């Protein structure tokens, strides 16, 4: 059953049309990667889905409630971080969480402590947020967005501005939450490779239009196995494997699109032709490459 259903939403700012009939769904337990270049309409779509901007036409249903007609019920089980973690800088992390908990009610002190532990902020939770690093603020933002035990989570570029360590921390936290709490998660990014390791579905948006919307498995099925060989020389290699799809990036490397069953015969052939093989490994296709293959485009940027 779909928890989030977006039906042909349109949005214009003045004469400029930002979104064209954007539609997609998110089911329970799914992590939808909402992917597109900067300015494609990702943030606008998320804002429309949260009632932060008005929808020109089309409908959004969350947990079966129409967002426009039944806002309070539709938004009740939603958690969100949009653009940046929105927290009150002059309050401590705990005070911020307490204020949000107060709005929902029925959240005990123990539950709050547990949540603080989940996002790993227990040591600094009583410090003013103004003293937090961006990564800590992002984690506090995530805690704030799941305080009401939502079954839907919207995360707009949650790793923006974070250092590599921060990105890993936030990513791990999202995976943990999805696993433990079985939420429907929408996570947007302009960087496909950042998401391809953990999303279940991908919705790719370009110039305000959805260009691809499919399970990640489908994208990954487009992945044809490719093996990279490191050898002492590449001279004559193209002639040797003239019947195979081959790429030669440099003087000591070549890549072959083959099935793993063929590896032994390839190796025998190389050795018998006086090539020295130094190393061999499988090269996976990135989501971006798969997407380009699917759409026949040049780039998503």
């Amino acid at each position: 059953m779909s928890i989030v259903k977006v039906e042909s939403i349109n949005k214009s700012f003045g004469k400029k049309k930002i979104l064209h009939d954007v539609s997609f769904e998110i089911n329970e337990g799914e992590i939808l990667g909402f992917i597109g270049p900067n300015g494609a309409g990702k943030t606008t779509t998320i804002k429309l889905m949260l009632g932060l901007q008005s929808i020109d036409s089309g409908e959004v249903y969350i947990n079966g409630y129409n967002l426009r007609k039944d806002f309070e019920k539709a938004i009740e089980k939603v958690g969100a971080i949009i653009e940046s973690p929105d927290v009150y800088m002059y309050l401590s992390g705990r005070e911020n969480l307490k204020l949000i908990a107060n709005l929902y009610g029925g959240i005990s002190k123990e539950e709050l402590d547990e949540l603080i532990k989940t996002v790993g902020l227990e040591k600094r939770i009583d410090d003013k947020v103004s003293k937090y690093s961006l990564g800590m603020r992002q984690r506090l933002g995530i805690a704030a967005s799941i305080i009401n035990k939502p079954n839907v989570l919207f995360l707009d570029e949650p790793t923006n501005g974070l250092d590599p360590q921060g990105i890993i921390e936030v990513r791990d936290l999202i995976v943990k939450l999805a696993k433990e709490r079985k939420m429907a998660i929408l996570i947007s990014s302009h960087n496909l490779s950042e998401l391809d390791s953990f999303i279940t579905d991908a919705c790719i948006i370009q110039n305000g239009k959805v260009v691809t919307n499919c399970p990640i498995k489908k994208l990954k099925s487009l992945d044809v196995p490719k093996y990279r060989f490191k050898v002492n020389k590449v001279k004559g290699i193209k002639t040797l494997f003239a019947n195979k799809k081959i790429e030669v990036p440099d003087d000591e490397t070549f890549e072959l699109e083959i099935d793993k069953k063929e590896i032994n015969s390839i190796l025998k052939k190389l050795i018998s032709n006086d090539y020295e093989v130094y190393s061999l490994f499988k090269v996976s296709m990135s989501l971006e490459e798969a997407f380009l293959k699917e759409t026949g485009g040049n780039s998503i940027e």
Partner: protein
Amino acid sequence: MSKLVYNELYKLFHKRSTKLYFVLVFLLLTLSLVIVLKFDNSEEIESNYDINYQQSIIDSYKDRNDLNDDEKSDYLGALVEHDKLSLIKEKGIKRNSPEEAYVKDNMSQLFYSKNFIIVYGYTTDVNNRTLDDINAEIDKEIKKLEELDPIAVIKDELSTLNKEIVCLDIKSEFCDKYFDIYKKVLEYRIEMNIPKSYNAASMELERYLTEYPSYLQYEKDKGRIKEEEKDTYNEIISFNKTMEYKIEHKLLTQSSVVQPNMVEIVSSGLTDMSIFIVIGLIMIGASVLSEEFEKGTVKLLLVKPFTRNKILISKIIASIIMIVIFCLYVTVLNTVSSIIYNNYLGMSFIYSLCEYNFSLHKVVEYNIFNYYILTFISQMIYFIMLDLIVICFSTLTTSTAISISFGFGLFIGTGILTEFVQKFKWIPLLPMYTSDMINVFFGQPPTYKILTLPVHVFFNIFYVILFIGLAMFIFKKKDIKNQ
């Protein structure tokens, strides 16, 4: 909704600007108190300055034979004042005592007659007294002064008055009324032991007598009062009616020269010190919503299960609660500092206040509580109106700085617009005027004729609906722009 209001108040109390406001108001009031206490020796300066000043005038004239008429008049005035002040100083007469009043008022004519002879060289005295005769009389008065019975002086005046009334040739209703009041005042002084002095009760009784003829005249001319005379008329009517009440209910007692009224002091925090409250409310009203937009936290708020209307109303309620807190805070600080100041000066307080109510056509007696409540409610209407306008404007601009400037502009502009009321009769119908209902609450004549009670009520309800409705409409339609 209560959860939203609680959160708003929590945020407002924890904001640095709110904390700074409380500290600054405290410091400003404390500082002004310290300055007043440390440097207030005005009475002493006045007294020294006066005697030395008169002496300096005398010195500049005394050895000259070529004085013109104006200079002679100045010289005479200085000599009379100097005689009075040096007698007071020489005899160690206390300030504001009946003795001081006796020297300054009753002995004044003798000093004048004496010094007239010195300056002009002849006498205009009706009894044709010589300088020696006058000096002898002055000595007699000084002796009398040493064992002065101030109430006996009043009794003498009363018996003289009774004799004069009997001898009076021309009788009229006007004179009868005046003499009645004169007798009433003297009898009241005797009964309540209020000698003639410069103390508050005595001065009020004197003013009552001085203004009574005008009061009688105005009562007679009622209905034919010109527009430009209305204020004076109202003031005299109010004063005389109040005095009648005070004498009847024996509310005037012997007092110090200035008698601070605790009823007024407590409420003055809301009126005289209202600028502190206005600063606080503009600061809150301008930022309560705008700051959420500026800092991006509005998104955090809007994705919670509450409609935008509820969010806006909770912010308005929270800002009104903050205004109430500011009012109480300023009241407490102002009252405490006034008590400290007046106690330091050795003043005794009065705890009731009488005011003539033009709507009820009677004098109303207030205590601290009911006077404060009435002042509070009337001022809150004004504060809430200003708050709503600022919030409505900040919803539109979503800029704290612009909204604060607008709020102060509106506050100052209201004062400036007053100058144009004669030309543009509709100006008093603007919200800042219709919400100023203090005169209505205390039954005072309206500042602007157009502002009758139904007009006040109608326009205030209209403006409240307008500003809240407008703010709701703007807020509901507002898209949260992408960063």
